[in-house]
């Protein structure tokens, strides 16, 4: 098992009358365990052209009903560039240049009519997207020509 931590810090000196400061850290553990860390990771970077909604992280039976965590960051620099991140054909929200998200992900392979792949569509121009998927238990496909 591996030890992976995700730390979140949010701060603002002026969105409220008093300063706002929030910080929390979590360990990325496997489902149904007290303290067994996830031991697989996928790191990736893509240039996403406009005009098509892509499967950024395809659903997989190996990722179903387990603890997985997704980090996505829009590394574009033009503030008007953004991507829409969707799941089950439902937009979660827009990641503008410099924005990131971190969320759990549970492949729901029973989702009617849609799928639980994490989708990404770019707007304004080609967006640069980096993502990390922390997961467990994925079995690679047997090569078709073996």
């Amino acid at each position: 098992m591996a030890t992976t931590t995700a730390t979140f810090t949010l701060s603002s000196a002026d969105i409220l009358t008093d300063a706002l400061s929030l910080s929390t850290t979590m360990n990325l553990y496997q489902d149904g365990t007290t303290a067994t860390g996830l031991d697989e990771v996928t790191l990736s970077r893509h240039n996403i052209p406009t005009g098509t909604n892509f499967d950024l992280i395809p659903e997989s039976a190996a990722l179903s009903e387990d603890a997985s965590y997704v980090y996505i960051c829009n590394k574009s620099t033009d503030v008007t560039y953004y991507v829409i991140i969707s799941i089950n054909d439902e937009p979660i929200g827009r990641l503008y240049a410099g924005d990131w998200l971190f969320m759990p992900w549970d492949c729901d392979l029973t989702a009617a009519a849609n799928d639980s792949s994490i989708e990404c569509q770019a707007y304004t121009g080609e967006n640069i997207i980096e993502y990390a998927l922390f997961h467990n238990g994925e079995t690679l496909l047997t090569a078709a020509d073996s």
Partner: protein
Amino acid sequence: MATTTATITLASADIMDNSISISNTSTLTTAGTDTGLAKTTGVARRTFASNSNTILLDHGLTSGIAEDVTADKSAKVYIKNTNDRGDGTKYVNILLVAREIGRLYGGDWMFIPWSGGSGKDIEFTASDTTETTLEYAVFYE
């Protein structure tokens, strides 16, 4: 305008042969601009003991954030399950319009953009009736 920053650090010394450390800071801005988000719900806390599907962020309300969180605007949502992890079998499913996003186990947090819009509620369903506390906040324009 306000200046609000959100920083994530993902770190592991042993999930790969070389250690990984991913860190990014985002300044929360209005859609397509450098102008900071100026509105927030503040950090809220809700405790429940039910495994029924429940609306956490209700976009059907006629006041509050409903009219300000729309697909062409910028909004960010933070949610944390503040319970202890326990045996790792208890969690809260976070859903968007009844479509599952993922599970927050005790101690887990998430930070996502939110398109909002009519009926685009953020909901949760606990794995059982154990008393659970969620903290959450919305930042929006």
